[in-house]
């Protein structure tokens, strides 16, 4: 059992800072058998870059909740294993969590395919399952004890549609869609296509490229020849790096006003550091950025504490995309257990369906399928990025929110060729 692969050193590194940043009211020490929260989390494999910040954020929450007296007066313990980002590994791990470790609460793995085999198991055992950024995992099963901490929303276009709606609002009519031939990005492409169709936009280019492609000059030339006004890209980190570099070298044509949308990797510090100012002008999805329209109570303090722990643990130092939401997951569970007064799955689920939760990522309420009732994926435009220092992303104005309208924090720069200079 892993109980601190990166956690102890990193979490201890922040404990002093945490005490200063958020003085805690002295509470009685939690006692008795621990409340065990079990999950698998990618520490290796393709999603490890996201799994490690998620884990660190949960460990920070565990530290905080235990300092507040634990859950129901008992200390909280995280029981977790590395699933290698593999759907073939997760069923055995969750069987162990349930039958051998006998965890009280169950959190899903990071990533949609890794979680898919867990859904039937959770339903069969009647366990509450808190998903970690799985995309529409409960759409078919509609399990009434499933919840997702990601702000994706339940409709297929809530996430990828934001980019297309932005393009449509700006009067753009010709859309190109280029996505990796893989889980996730194909779904994103389908959502973008559906939104474009519903808005009456013309899709002038719609192709998949092989997963893990790194050289994109021929693909970009084909996109360019279609003369689109907006280009929706669904890519994974290696491909994102290849696309950004190819765009910097050969451009994408003067017709393009907006470029980006679904590029995975631009949410994480290592890729931002590697790409430097080549990201300027790109419009892309995010869940949280330090802009004035996303100043939720406690988020600044959390991000600062996370940064200290991340540096000590060798994890993504920004952690904007996943870490606050994984901390919020703990806050939701904490509030629900406190309100219900037990760890009983049915009672907790019933409460979570009806209540609204105050968290570091704002207020969260869940809809019928367990997704956020009010989706809140944002599209940001990289502006004024200089050099490769990722610390600049802690300032407002580097990732300017341009969609949805109620969260807009700055002016969208177009066309793309001008915006990226």
């Amino acid at each position, binding site marked *: 059992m892993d109980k601190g692969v990166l956690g102890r050193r990193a979490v201890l590194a922040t404990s002093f800072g945490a005490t200063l940043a958020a003085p805690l009211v002295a509470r009685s020490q939690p006692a008795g058998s621990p409340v065990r929260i079990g999950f698998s989390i990618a520490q290796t494999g393709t999603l490890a870059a996201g799994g490690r910040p998620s884990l660190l954020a949960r460990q920070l929450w565990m530290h905080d909740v235990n300092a507040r007296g634990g859950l129901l007066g008992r200390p909280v313990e995280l029981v977790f*294993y590395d699933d290698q980002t593999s*759907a073939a590994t997760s069923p055995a791990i969750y069987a162990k969590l349930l039958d051998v470790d006998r965890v009280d609460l169950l959190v899903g793995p990071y990533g949609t395919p890794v979680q898919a*085999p867990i859904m*039937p198991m959770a339903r069969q055992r009647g366990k509450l399952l808190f998903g970690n950024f799985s995309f529409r995992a409960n759409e078919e099963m509609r399990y009434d004890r499933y919840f997702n901490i990601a702000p994706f929303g339940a409709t297929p276009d809530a996430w990828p549609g934001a980019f297309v709606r932005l393009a449509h609002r700006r009067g753009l009519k010709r859309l190109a869609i280029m996505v990796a*031939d893989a889980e*996730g990005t194909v779904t994103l492409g389908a959502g973008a296509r559906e939104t474009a169709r519903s808005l009456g936009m013309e899709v002038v280019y719609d192709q998949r490229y092989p997963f893990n492609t790194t050289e994109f000059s021929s693909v970009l030339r084909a996109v360019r020849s279609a003369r689109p006004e907006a280009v929706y890209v669904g890519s994974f980190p290696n491909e994102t790096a290849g696309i950004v570099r190819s765009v910097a070298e050969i451009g994408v044509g003067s017709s393009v006003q907006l470029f980006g949308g679904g590029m995975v990797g631009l949410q994480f510090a290592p890729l931002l550091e590697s790409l430097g100012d080549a990201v300027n002008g790109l419009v892309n999805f995010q869940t949280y950025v330090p802009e004035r329209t996303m100043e939720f109570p406690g988020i600044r303090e959390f991000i600062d504490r996370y940064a200290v722990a991340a540096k000590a643990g060798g994890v993504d130092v920004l952690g904007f995309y996943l870490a606050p939401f994984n901390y919020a997951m703990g806050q939701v569970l904490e509030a629900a257990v406190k309100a219900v007064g037990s760890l009983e799955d049915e009672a907790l689920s019933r409460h979570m369906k009806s209540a609204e939760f105050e968290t570091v990522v704002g207020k969260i309420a869940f809809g019928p399928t367990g997704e956020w009732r009010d989706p809140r994926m944002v599209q940001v435009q990289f502006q004024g990025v200089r050099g490769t220092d990722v610390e600049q992303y802690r300032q407002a104005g580097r990732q300017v929110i341009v969609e949805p309208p109620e969260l807009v924090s700055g002016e969208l720069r177009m066309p793309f060729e001008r915006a990226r200079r």
Partner: protein
Amino acid sequence: MRSWVRFAAGGLVVLLLAALAARWLANDYLFFAAFVVLQFVVLATAWNILGGYGGYVNFGTGAFVATGAYAAVALQKLADLPLPLLVLAGTAAGAVLGSALGLLTLRLRGIYFAIATLAITIILETVVLNWDYVGGARGITLDRPHEDPFFGTYNRMLVVLMAGMAVVAVGIARWVGVSAFGRALSAIRDSEDAAEACGVPTLRRKVQAATLSGAMMGAAGAPLPLYLSFVDHTAAFGLNYAVSAMAMPMIGGTGHWIGPVIGAVLLGTAQQAVTVTISSEVNVLITGLLLIGFVVAAPRGILGWLGR
């Protein structure tokens, strides 16, 4: 003849123990772990027929597992066939792929054959990625029963099924080891030209071995989507299948039917234990270190080391 009776009795005991455990043991985790280990017994045994007896290294185990898995998915979606027919379909699909591999690439030897098996994996994965009917890149969730009237849960029943498949696979490997077919494969492994000169129909035997090996791998892959309730290309074409199916016979010993069984039980159990005790990174490291250690210190595996 007496040894076959003993083997059959041993196989029946294994099946009986699996059935009794499925009926009476309370811990479901053991069954999830046992499914993986038993699946590796089948895969390692199947790999050994072509790789151990015949000397042709197959890096495409993942392709065969996926062929069986996706054949089952397609037929379940198309006609909602019962499990035995899905396993038969997976077996047939694996056999067809095996014979195609034999016909296409068995004229290649050594490293060229190994590269061709890798290429087949890549080709098939690309086909699956673009075949939306079986989930394409997104994967597919299967609606299968959770309960089983006799064993309690469907997964427990799958473990008993996999135990049966392991017994049959080992029985086939045992027969190959002592038959003229097996001796022909050994002759091919030692010197293909000499075997040909002695009158061994090498191409036919190699195609037969590839077909048999492929059929067994396809059979092992067929229950996978039902075990997971979901399948996607990363789960079905996992590199772990190729590496482990090759490492297990090499660790146990490739010259005898029991070698892959020893390797699969030891390495498979160690992998399962390490995954939930130390970490998965160490799990992969252990496989690699054991493989290197055995190749260097005991090239004939545990059996050779024990002097059999």
